[in-house]
Structures are given as structure tokens and as C-alpha cells.
């Protein structure tokens, strides 16, 4: 199985920045808000190209979020990006009331997702943002798997969606393996690789890890289906139910707390329609720490190896039955 090849490492934040720039080129209503860290969240390209549509508001996330709501009320398409920890939590109430309750088309970029942020450590590693954002009514939550997909989803979120959108992306250059021609639809999961023994449902950086794990498993005769859940909400129930019915075992993989995140979202569907065993790979009620990205992903079990291990133990149990 080599359907996907890494064309080179690229940070998903760059995909976001390029998507925002492209949307800006195509639609003069697109405006971007900066909260000081424009370069590190990928907004610099837009800011340089469209200074008159770039609004600097300083280190004030609550205000940034409210201003975005006001801009949207007046017909603009505001994009506000900052680190996911701040984007989702510092201004959570502004997102809830000013953005979501008003159902405004505000795009919130959550950068620095996961422990792969690396040396900055726990305060800057977003690990709870999916959980917080996905419970808000009207909110769409996107978590693309690589830079190319982040580009496509950012563009689609700005141009095609209505209402509030949270899009999550990372800092570290990671494998860029999807291509622009691959069909995608917001709200529809992508089956990247078919298999009948178990299903790995992954999101963000963990999708590449899931593909690697599937290859490792295949070499020992276990055939794993790999699903890329780039839209956490609205969730693709159909693909998840089908995976549960056809493979009987599910592993979820996310660079996020397992509580409230992708694993929980999948479990909500599976437990209702087709209860099967789910193993959740993710952060386990723990903060991250400093280190290099790879070391951290290994330490916290966010790797192809960890997925493979989980698959093996699940599969053994399945065989026993």
C-alpha cells in the first residue's frame, strides 16, 4: 500500500496562510485580524499583500473575537488566527455569545495544535480546543491532516461555509502527502486506505501516523482501514458507522486530549448506532511539556508505533473472541 507519499515536510500553518491569501485575492470582503503573532500563525502573507484589510488589535484575544463578530455583522468575512490555546479558551465566551449565538461567519484559526509545537511547552500546546469548540452550537470544527489540505479547507471554509468555523493547524513541518486534486467535502470523512480488520480514525498530524501504522500492520497481515476525519463537526456519521459495522474495531488518533476530542466524538456515534471496542490514542488528562516535536509525540504515544501497538493488542483480543 503506497497510495500516499510525503512530498516534503511543510507546516500546516503555512497551508492556512496560503489559503487565507488565496481567499483574499478572490474576495475583497475577506479581512484578517492580527493579535501580534501574525507571522507565527500564518497571517503575514495576507497582511503584506492586503495591508488595508489587515487589522492589528494587539494581544487582546477577547477583543479580537468581538471585533471579528462586528465585522461579520457588517458583511465582512473576518479571519482571526492565534494560538489555539488562546483562540479557543481565552476568548471562549466571546466565541460562544458574540460569534456562535449570533451565528456569524467568523473564521477562527487555532495555531500551534498539539504537542508537536515542541519546546514552547505546555502553555502553548493546544490540546483542549477541539473539545471546547465542538460543543458550541452553529460551530464547524476543521482539523486538516497536512499543509495541502489545510490550504483547501481554509479556502473552502472562507468561501463556501456559513456561520462560525474553527480550523486547527500545527507549527512543525510535517509530511505533506495529500494533493489538491483529491476530492474533499467539509463534513465528509476521507477513507484514505481500505481494510477490513480494524479502522484507524485520525485527524490532524495523526493521519500520517495512521497511514504509517497501517503499512506496518499490513506487513504482518493485519488490514487496517484509515479514515481521515478532517471535519470534527459536523461529523460524518455514515463513514464511522460503516467502519464499526465492517471492521468491528476502531482506533482513534488525535494530537489532543482524548476527553472531549475526536475519540469522544467518534464514541458518541459508535455507542449509539453500533457499539464496538474503541481504543483512543491521544493525550490522557495530561499537559504537554518542552522537547522536540518527535520526542514529544513519542513520549505521549502519538506515533505510528503507538497506533500499531494498540492495534495489535486489540486485534489479539478480537481473535480470542
Amino acid at each position, binding site marked *: 500500500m503506497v497510495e500516499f507519499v510525503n512530498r516534503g515536510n511543510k507546516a500546516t500553518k503555512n497551508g492556512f496562510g496560503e489559503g487565507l491569501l488565496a481567499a483574499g485575492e478572490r474576495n475583497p470582503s475577506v479581512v484578517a485580524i492580527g493579535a501580534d503573532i501574525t507571522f507565527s500563525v500564518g497571517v503575514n502573507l495576507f497582511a503584506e499583500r492586503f495591508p488595508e484589510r489587515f487589522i492589528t488589535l494587539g494581544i*487582546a484575544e477577547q477583543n479580537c473575537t*468581538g*471585533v471579528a463578530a462586528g465585522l461579520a455583522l457588517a458583511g465582512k468575512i473576518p479571519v482571526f488566527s492565534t494560538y489555539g490555546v488562546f483562540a479557543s479558551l481565552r476568548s471562549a465566551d466571546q466565541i460562544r455569545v458574540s460569534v456562535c449565538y449570533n451565528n456569524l461567519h467568523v473564521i477562527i484559526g487555532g495555531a500551534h495544535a498539539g504537542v508537536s509545537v515542541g519546546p514552547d511547552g505546555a502553555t502553548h500546546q493546544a490540546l483542549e480546543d477541539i473539545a471546547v469548540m465542538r460543543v458550541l452550537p452553529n460551530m464547524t470544527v476543521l482539523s486538516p491532516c497536512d499543509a495541502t489540505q489545510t490550504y483547501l479547507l481554509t479556502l473552502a471554509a472562507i468561501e463556501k461555509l456559513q456561520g462560525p468555523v474553527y480550523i486547527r493547524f500545527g507549527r512543525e513541518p510535517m509530511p505533506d502527502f495529500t494533493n489538491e486534486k483529491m476530492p474533499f467535502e467539509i463534513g465528509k470523512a476521507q477513507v484514505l486506505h481500505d481494510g477490513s480488520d480494524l479502522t484507524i480514525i485520525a485527524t490532524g498530524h495523526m493521519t500520517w501516523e495512521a497511514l504509517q501504522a497501517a503499512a506496518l500492520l499490513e506487513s504482518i497481515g493485519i488490514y487496517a482501514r484509515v479514515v481521515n476525519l478532517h471535519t470534527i463537526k459536523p461529523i460524518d456519521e455514515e463513514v464511522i458507522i460503516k467502519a464499526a459495522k465492517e471492521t468491528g474495531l476502531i482506533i482513534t488518533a488525535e494530537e489532543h486530549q482524548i476527553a472531549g476530542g475526536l475519540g469522544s466524538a467518534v464514541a458518541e456515534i459508535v455507542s449509539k448506532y453500533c457499539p464496538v471496542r474503541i481504543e483512543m490514542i491521544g493525550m490522557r488528562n495530561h499537559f504537554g511539556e518542552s522537547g522536540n516535536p518527535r520526542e514529544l509525540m513519542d513520549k505521549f504515544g502519538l506515533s505510528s508505533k503507538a497506533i500499531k501497538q494498540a492495534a495489535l493488542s486489540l486485534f489479539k483480543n478480537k481473535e480470542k473472541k
Partner: protein
Amino acid sequence: MVVKAISDPSLLKRAADSIRVSIIQSLAEAGSGHLGGCLDLADIFSLLYFSILNHDPSNPQWEERDRLVLSIGHVAPVLYSTLAHSGYFPVEELLTLRKLGSRLQGHPGREHGLPGIELSAGSLGQGLSVSVGLAMAAKMDKKVWKVFCILGDGELQEGSVWEAAMAASHHKLDNLVAIIDRNGLQIDGCTENVMQLEPLQKKWNSFNWNVFECDGHDHHQMLKTFGAIPYNSGRPTVIIAHTIMGKGVSSIEGDYRWHGKAPSGEQAMEFIKEIAKE
């Protein structure tokens, strides 16, 4: 039809009293709500909707309208009553306040479809930021419409208000007017005991805003103050309107316990009688 500006203070006072009567009736019918602040804002709302705002009740989404953002969502009934008396919807609908299925939510909710509501709000400290966004959009599009934001004084204890204040002057939003309902009271008592706000004028001055103070019940004075707003000054304007909570009903005026209370049916009759007498 765009509302014609009334410049006669006695007519504005009469409109304010009609608004007060509707507030009392709707709160008594609802059995809950925030009477004190609603009554004290009636004079400011009659001034805004009958004299200052450029708006059209028959076309609530008119693009060139001035925007009124009510940051203190809990005084929704003063907005609802004013909108009804301006012709946005029938006055009788005010009696559905806070009831299941009503367009008149306890705090304004746009999704319920009441015409004239610019923002769903109720969590304090958010309206000024939204107003900044609106004012920025107007500037970007070279529109002449203005943004008026109603803030409570207790609300100024929220840090996000000052983030927005900083942004408004940094971006030279002279099309933005904040109006502070300075009644000096909040749920726990006097603002100055709960968390000191003074020197309030100096605070806004130091944030580079034009600052005016006025008696929020004196239409003559308010007409003058609002008429003097320097819309081309390169700075946003704040009007600190000194008000008395519960204004118009002498037995509850200045009593913070009426911040979050509704009158009984009997009290409502008595209150309305007093307002009608004036």
C-alpha cells in the same frame, strides 16, 4: 420611512414615559427581568430612537442605518419597548417578554427574529468589541453610518471593555459613540464599593476618547451633548450619562435591589399611575 428627528425635549420626555409604561407592563407580565436599569435608560432610548439614530422601522435591515449595539443585554425590555413604540413591531407583542416561543428573549437573541435587534448579547463586556468591528467595517467601506454602543457602568469592570477601548482609539474610530449608563449601582450595591470605577472620565480620556458627561434624564441637555459629538475628530466618543436607577418611579429610584427585579401586578399599577400623573 426613515424616522424624522424630534428636537422637542418635552415630546422626547413623553415618548420616554410611554416606553417606561410598556417596560413595567411587560416585566409585570413576565414576572422577572431587570426593572431598574430599563427605567433609567428610557430617556436615553427615546432620545436615540426618536432624535439621534438614522433608522427605518419599516426596513430594519436598511444598509445605511446607524447601528445600536446593546452591550448590557439584561436591559433588553427598554430596547424592545422603544422598538415597538418606534413601529418595528406591535406594542402588544411586548407582553410576550421572556415567554416560551417569544421573539422577546430575556436577553436579545437575533435568531428569534425580532426586527431591530442588531446583536444577540447578554454576557457583559462584549458589545464594545462588536461595535468596534462594525465601526471598522463602516470605515473600510467609506460608509457614513455610525455605531452607538450602550454600556452599563458595572460592565466596565470587565477587562475586555478596555481592550476594545484601546482598539477604538488606536484605529481612530470617530464613527463610534459609547454611552455609559452611569447609575452607580450594580447587583451587589454601589459600583464604587464593589469595584471602583472612578475617576471614570480620566480613564476614558487616557484611552484617547472624547469624553462628555451629561444628565441622562435631561433631554434638553442630552440633545446639546449628542449634537456636539465630534464625528470627524479622529477619536471615538464616550458619553457618560448620569442616571438614576428606577427613574420615574419615586419609590424605587436609586434602590439597587431593583436591578434584577420585576414588579408585581399591583406594584405595576401603582408605578404606572405615578408615571401617568407627571
